[in-house]
């Protein structure tokens, strides 16, 4: 299939998203979305389960996401289409599941994007206040959203190249802080011996901490959305996703180690000044570390919003292209080769949530949508392996020990639902109700517009048993 065919009036007859990305961009997309979770949010796990409870959550949820990354890498390196898990669900399960997964993705990323730009604006407000000036956060929140939307509109290569630079800078700021607190000299700055306590709320607290442990890694699965724009998806997607996951495991461990050695768990668990890693840098008394961590925190929030705009738009675009939503959203910009209408459409929604909705509610909606997506993945991989066993189609990556990762992922998802229910039961039930209503709308109204014969796009043999 040619990338672009030329028509009679000089206009191309067909255009596709531009294939220009490599593994570095995939890494930048995945880690860029997530890294903000090391700078803020994870610390509420400390409030639920104490410092060691947060560490256990870091490990257990790290295992959950490692399973997600392994399963995603195998399926996306084979179903390499924009929409990621949505396209996977369409091929392995069916239209109703695909519609729901698409909706999880769009809402998870749009809500996270709203939270990110809100935080970025508030950080500028905090920075100005530290310099002795009072400013409103709203103009800076809207400016960051406008700049990132414009960047996304103008092309994916520059968008994710910028993301690579600012994500790498944010990650480096964690490393700089780690070196700055002299971990080789315990007691000089890091006071683990005095600050670490037993589990303050027992094992129930540890379970409750799982909810906020998700912050350490939420969004790494976003690498899949780049599938249609990667030059060699069979190689780049697994490489970018797995190296991204390794980066996050390192960043999460360093973050926990630094923060619990500098701040008491009672403060860390209810940090009202937004960013615990930044607060930890202030405890060192070093002006240089203070500035480095301010920049790192700001960059992490911007990188996350940037990746979320990219991913939400790809998922929305894919659903439009398949007529799960109005087909108008499935348009590609003839010059920039981006899903420009989907990018534009989602921006006012993110702006409204950023300026009007409470941050905790916005983020909870994002986490719950993500969790629903992860619960689908074990089902997804079982169906994928059963219908197209190893050897029947070429895979970019085959994850080991199947079905152990799928079973582990399902068990950990169920445990995390219990954890979420303990703190946000009403929101969980309200969101389930929302998705049920949306499913009814799709099944009884929208599905008649879907072209059933066009759903299956991969050049694979018939599935086993069909």
């Amino acid at each position, binding site marked *: *299939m040619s990338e672009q065919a030329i028509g009679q009036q000089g206009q191309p007859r067909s*255009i596709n998203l531009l294939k220009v990305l490599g593994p570095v961009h995939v890494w930048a997309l995945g880690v860029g979305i997530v890294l903000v979770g090391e700078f803020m949010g994870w610390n509420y796990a400390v409030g639920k389960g104490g410092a060691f409870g947060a560490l256990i959550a870091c490990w257990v949820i790290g295992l959950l996401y490692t399973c997600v990354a392994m399963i995603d890498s195998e399926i996306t390196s084979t179903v390499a289409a924009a929409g990621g898990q949505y396209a996977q669900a369409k091929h392995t399960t069916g239209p109703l599941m695909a519609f729901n997964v698409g909706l999880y993705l769009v809402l998870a990323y749009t809500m996270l994007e709203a939270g990110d730009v809100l935080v970025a604006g508030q950080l500028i407000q905090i920075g100005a206040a530290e310099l002795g000036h009072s400013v409103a956060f709203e*103009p800076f929140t809207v400016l960051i959203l406008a700049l990132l939307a414009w960047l996304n509109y103008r092309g994916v290569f520059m968008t994710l190249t910028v993301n690579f630079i600012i994500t790498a800078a944010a990650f480096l700021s964690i490393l700089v802080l780690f070196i700055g607190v002299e971990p080789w000299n315990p007691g000089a700055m890091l006071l683990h011996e005095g600050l670490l306590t037993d589990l303050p709320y027992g094992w129930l607290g540890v379970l409750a901490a799982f909810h906020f442990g998700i912050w350490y890694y939420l969004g790494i699965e976003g690498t899949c959305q780049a599938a249609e724009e990667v*030059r*060699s998806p069979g190689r780049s997607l697994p490489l970018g996703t797995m190296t991204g996951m390794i980066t996050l495991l390192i960043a999460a461990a360093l973050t926990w180690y630094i923060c619990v050695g500098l701040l008491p768990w009672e403060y860390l668990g209810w940090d009202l000044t937004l960013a615990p890693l930044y607060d930890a840098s202030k405890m060192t008394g070093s002006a240089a570390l203070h500035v480095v961590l301010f920049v790192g925190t700001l960059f992490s929030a911007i990188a996350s919003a940037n990746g979320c705009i990219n991913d939400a738009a790809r998922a929305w675009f894919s659903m439009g292209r398949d007529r799960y939503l109005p087909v108008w959203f*499935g348009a590609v910009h003839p010059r920039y080769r981006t899903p*420009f209408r989907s990018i534009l459409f989602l921006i006012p929604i993110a702006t409204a949530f950023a300026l009007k909705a409470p941050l905790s509610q916005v983020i909870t909606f994002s986490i719950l949508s993500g969790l629903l997506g992860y619960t689908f993945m074990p089902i997804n991989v079982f169906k994928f392996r059963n219908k197209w066993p190893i050897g029947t189609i070429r895979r970019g990556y085959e994850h080991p020990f199947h079905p152990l990762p799928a079973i582990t992922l399902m068990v950990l998802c169920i445990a995390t639902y219990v954890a979420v229910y303990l703190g946000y039961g009403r929101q969980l039930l309200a969101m389930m109700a929302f998705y049920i209503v949306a499913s009814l709308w799709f099944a009884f109204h929208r599905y008649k517009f879907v072209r059933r014969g066009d759903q299956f796009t991969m*050049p694979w043999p018939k599935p086993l048993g069909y």
Partner: protein
Amino acid sequence: MDFWGIAEWAAWIVSALLFLWMLVDAYRVGREYDESMLLSSREGVDDLFGDAGRGK
């Protein structure tokens, strides 16, 4: 008006200009290009491992 006051106004103005630019561009593209061409993108990768160009 101090620096931060000017920065606040500048942020609003630059944001408005960027959103306006995108809206105008999207409108212009819709007028200049055939809708069927804009919607012609198709899912499915013909070169999953990037080796088609090497004749594999």
